[in-house]
């Protein structure tokens, strides 16, 4: 657990970067700091590992005042990942990852073995172990950065815009990977970003800062999207917040409708659309009404699928909107077609889901 109590940072030139911050980042959770440029996110983050010293207030990591700790010792117990990873260009990938264990005095052999293990954990091919950072793509370097931060198994991980320098597709896969890792490792993570979408995707709780280093709102992402405290947060969260908020409402109660289903070789439907199934009941796509049999050529790709039980309202609505027939395909845990879902059904389920989440 990381606890800010009345923490202020005033730089020698008089800039107040962080103003009287009270905030608790819970153990084992991802806390995201988000806000416009210059609002004090990085400064707040760097006070946790004493890269910046607070001017006033108290900051504790797992009950220990950071100012009472030896800075180097403190930092070895806190993983740190920054934009473009900050890898050492003169060390191989495996030695970059082994850095902190070596600083802690573990043997070189053991540190390198651990580093190779971690390469697998973050999805890097071990054959890259002997390469230098310049020989990796941006996304791969970022994975090395995460592996390096995890190497000594620190309970706390600080991440400062770690994914902002890679393209959107790679960024999304890195985000998914982080969530997967976190579900296994359960670290206390503080993650800085200026991207509200990234914040609501990754954060268990999101702290929105305003310029001047003041905390504007600190809530779960769903609450942030549905109930911003003021105009600043409302504007910052953005225009589509209503739609994006659907992602945080669950939808076990949406009634599934019937669906016309055909297999390859069956005659085409007389009117409307039908879903084409493979031999195991999984959807292949849609066919429109017509004459003759269903063949590869007549199949139109389907939209997104809505997994019953695990899906959000947003997933259900998207399945309906992206399907050529207007009917979203709901699938069960095995990926077999379970029924259809329509936009009307999603909207009808909305009030109940809202009440649930408010409760």
């Amino acid at each position: 657990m990381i606890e800010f109590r009345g923490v202020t940072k005033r730089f020698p030139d008089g800039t107040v970067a962080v103003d009287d911050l009270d905030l608790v980042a819970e153990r084992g959770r991802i806390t995201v700091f988000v806000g416009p440029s210059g609002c004090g996110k990085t400064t707040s983050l760097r006070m946790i590992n004493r890269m910046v010293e607070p001017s006033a207030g108290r900051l504790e990591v797992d009950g220990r005042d950071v100012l009472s700790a030896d800075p180097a010792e403190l930092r070895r117990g806190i993983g740190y990942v920054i934009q473009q990873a900050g890898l050492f260009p003169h060390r191989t990938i495996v030695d970059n990852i082994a850095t902190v264990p070596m600083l802690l005095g573990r043997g070189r052999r053991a540190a390198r073995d651990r580093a190779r293990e971690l390469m697998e954990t973050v999805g890097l091919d071990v054959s890259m172990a002997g390469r230098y950072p310049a020989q990796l793509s941006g996304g791969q370097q970022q994975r090395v950065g995460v592996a390096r931060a995890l190497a000594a198994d620190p309970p706390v991980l600080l991440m400062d815009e770690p994914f902002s320098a890679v393209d959107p597709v790679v960024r999304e896969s890195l985000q998914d990977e982080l969530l997967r890792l976190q579900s296994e490792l359960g670290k206390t993570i503080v993650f800085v970003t200026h991207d509200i979408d990234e914040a609501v995707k990754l954060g268990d709780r999101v702290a929105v800062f305003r310029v001047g280093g003041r905390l504007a709102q600190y809530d779960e992402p769903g609450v942030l999207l549905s109930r911003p405290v003021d105009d600043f947060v409302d504007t910052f969260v953005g225009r589509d917040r209503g739609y994006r908020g659907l992602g945080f409402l669950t939808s076990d109660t949406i009634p599934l409708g019937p669906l016309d289903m055909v297999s390859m070789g069956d005659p085409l439907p007389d009117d409307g659309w039908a879903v084409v199934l493979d031999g195991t009941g999984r959807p292949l796509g849609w066919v429109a009404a017509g004459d003759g049999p269903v063949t590869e050529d007549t199949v139109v790709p389907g939209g997104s699928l809505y997994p019953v039980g695990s899906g959000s309202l947003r997933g259900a609505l998207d399945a309906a909107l992206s399907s050529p027939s207007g009917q979203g395909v709901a699938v069960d845990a095995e990926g077999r077609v379970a029924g259809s879902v329509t936009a009307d059904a999603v909207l009808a389920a909305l009030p109940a889901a809202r009440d649930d989440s408010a409760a």
Partner: protein
Amino acid sequence: MDWVLRNSGLVLELTREHLVLSLLPVLLGLVLAIPLGWLANRRSWGRTLTLNAAGFLYTLPSLALFVFLPPIIGTRILDPLNVIVALTVYVLALLVRTVADGLSAVPERIVDSATAMGFRPVRRFLAVELPIAVPVIVAGLRVAAVSSISLVTVGSVIGFGGLGKMFTEGFQREIPQQTVAGIVLVLLLALVVDALLVLAGRLLTPWERAQQPTAGRARPGARR
């Protein structure tokens, strides 16, 4: 050539002396330049002080240095130490700037992430900043070594100039082959030492020649 073969004993002895007189100062200068370059890079007053002092020393004429050093450092006028000290001052003046530049070119981001991982300043300097500055330092070292090898010859006016002695003697005794041989040998020495430094630099910095990725960017979900 003939002359060299007939006097190979003398030539070898002078070459050895030339190497010691020119390269010992390079080594000493480097060892002193590293902490001073660090200071210059860490503190703004350190930068002003060291770089101005270095600039001043570098503009002193070398001959004057050979002559005025003895009373300052308490050596006799005919002492090889004069040559060594004078050249060390030269090399130092040259390398302080190089080391400071090399260190300041290490990206802030990298120094920062080293600190954040728990390096203490001395270890961070030796394990991260200095190695990354090696290519710049080696470039400066090549200039310093070649300059030093040619400057040693000036020492022959006080009797310790290594191969420079062949210039002066060749003149006095009117043996042009000796003068020419001296010049060629100094050039050769400079070339060989320079080549060795290039080689050493390459061995120290294997990452500098690491290829860019050929496989392209990471594909999402491309694991295993």
